[in-house]
């Protein structure tokens, strides 16, 4: 594995692990983010990450770019990734698949029902797709686009489905929409534009500035890179019940470790 350093203007440095997708690269990215945050290197103002890479916002008055690259490669050399363990979480999320709201949204933008379209595209029935979606688990590889939006992929590559993005992005996507574009899936935290096909909708907020549920006391954003998500199917009545009693809803979250060599289907040895 070759680590690449890319200069992004006068105060950003991008550390890239490769241009193709693998959960191994995502793991490496999150490990390095963690380590960088822990050592509190002088001059680092912020660290953000994407699928295969992370970006360091540094103060060039505090640290020279070359010295920063040195610091990062020192950490790289020390890391023994096979033994690395990340503290992660598994979060269970309820979803109404093929719900009425995203259905009418698709209609608004002259698209056929998205869930049916994605099922056909992957040569399976709707029930089969839902069955597959709820029996897989997903790794959050980065947070982006809008505040708190998690992007995730199925951990077991055999349950990977794909979908083309909208040719012309929607100007509106309902809050809580479960979307898929290419191999990536996401949940829209707020009503926003979007180009992913809409599979369903969750009643659970994942970004809450008002902190109306105790889960948001520490952080207004639910997901973190490295989290594992498991979905379960609910109906419209259950959706509305959760929505009504949201402030007292108990989010189903469990702490767990993420390591490259233990873990869930397909995440072991080779690239996924």
């Amino acid at each position, binding site marked *: 594995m070759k680590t690449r350093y*890319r*200069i*992004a*203007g*006068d*105060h*950003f440095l*991008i550390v*890239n692990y490769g*241009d*193709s*997708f693998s959960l191994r690269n995502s793991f490496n990215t999150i490990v390095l*983010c963690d380590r960088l945050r822990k050592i509190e290197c002088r001059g680092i*103002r*912020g*660290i*953000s*990450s*994407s*699928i*295969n*890479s*992370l*970006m360091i*916002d540094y103060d*060039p*008055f505090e640290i020279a*770019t070359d010295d920063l690259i040195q610091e990062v490669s020192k950490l790289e050399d020390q890391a023994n990734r096979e033994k690395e363990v990340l503290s992660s979480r598994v979060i269970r999320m309820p979803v109404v698949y093929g719900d009425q709201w995203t259905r009418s949204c698709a209609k608004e933008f002259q698209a056929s029902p998205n869930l049916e379209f994605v099922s056909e595209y992957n040569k399976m029935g709707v029930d089969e797709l839902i069955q597959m979606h709820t029996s897989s688990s997903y790794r959050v590889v*980065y*947070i*982006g*686009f*809008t*505040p*708190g*939006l998690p*992007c995730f992929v199925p951990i077991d590559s055999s349950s990977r489905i794909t979908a083309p*993005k909208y040719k012309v992005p929607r100007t509106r996507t309902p809050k809580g929409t479960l979307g898929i574009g*290419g*191999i*990536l899936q996401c949940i829209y*935290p*707020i009503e*926003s534009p979007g180009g992913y096909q809409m599979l369903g909708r969750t009643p659970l907020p994942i970004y809450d*500035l008002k902190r109306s549920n105790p889960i948001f006391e520490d952080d207004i*954003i639910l997901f973190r*890179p490295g989290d594992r998500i498991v979905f379960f199917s609910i109906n419209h009545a259950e959706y509305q019940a959760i929505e009504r009693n949201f402030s007292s809803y108990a989010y189903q979250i469990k702490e767990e470790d993420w390591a490259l060599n233990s873990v869930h289907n397909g995440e072991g040895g080779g690239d996924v």
Partner: protein
Amino acid sequence: MFEVINGGMMTTVQDLGRPGYGSKGIPPSGAFDAYSLKVGNLLLKNLLGDAGLEVLGIGFQMKALSDMGIAITGGDLSPRLNGQNIQMWKVIRVSKGDVLSFSRVKKGCRAYVTVIGGVDVPSLLGSRSTFLRGEMGGYEGRMLKKGDILKIGQSGISPSRLEGRRAAPNLVRHFGNTFQVRAVRGLEEFLFTNESVELFFSTRWKVTPLADRMGVRYEGPQLSFKPREEFMDLEGGEDPSNILNECIPTGGLQVVSGREPIVLAVDGPPTGGYVKIGTVISCDLAWIAQSKPGDSTFFKEVSLDEAHRILIEEDSMFQDASMVID
């Protein structure tokens, strides 16, 4: 305190932003023309990062509910006090009941209203800046509208003491219709043909109407890409400008489909799946903030060392006492 009489096209509370939350999907926000905001604060003896108002275009009007000292910097939107033209880049004393308004876009497009003590809204994640798409920060996470009443921070300095203080000519900026913006090449530059990289740095680009705090889009010649590996089609997308999602630096120069480069600005998405040819240097985002649809822009390549030298030079202006005339 002051009351908003008319919100205008788009007026938001901004300071120097909240960097470092890209991992949560939150862009830095902050004044698009940070230079002008800082000059305003310098004149008023505020902290350089105190919050002010970013006024885009015409229409904004506010009434002072107490005596205050203000400075207007940035683009010239014909600022008036009680209907009389007032000077920019200079401390103006405002009395209770006075009305400040902006009536015509003369030069640039974003003016900054700074006030002694700074605009006081709750701080969120270390900043008072408004991020409109996230409905967060600033005044209730939105642009200002009629009837809003905003508070001003405490300062021991009275407006009469600072009245007339102005920026030295070197500190004042004037805006025309042609901009030169400096950029460091890099990122996915290697995916473009060499001719296209050269073309990019020698073209007179035209600002399109798609220009806001998220990004500014330009019109010009088509840029082309080198042949690339097959996996990039599968994972990034079929278009040759698609890549696997990457972090986007503020100032990143994204070129969708080889057409219409976009400079991603202060409210730009923290990640995205399009190639970038380089990054605009941090000092020059302020110039982009003042360019309007139809204006011309040249991107000039600078080395990283040069970019750092420019940063140091600009920083030293704010330390230099001779830049302010009492």
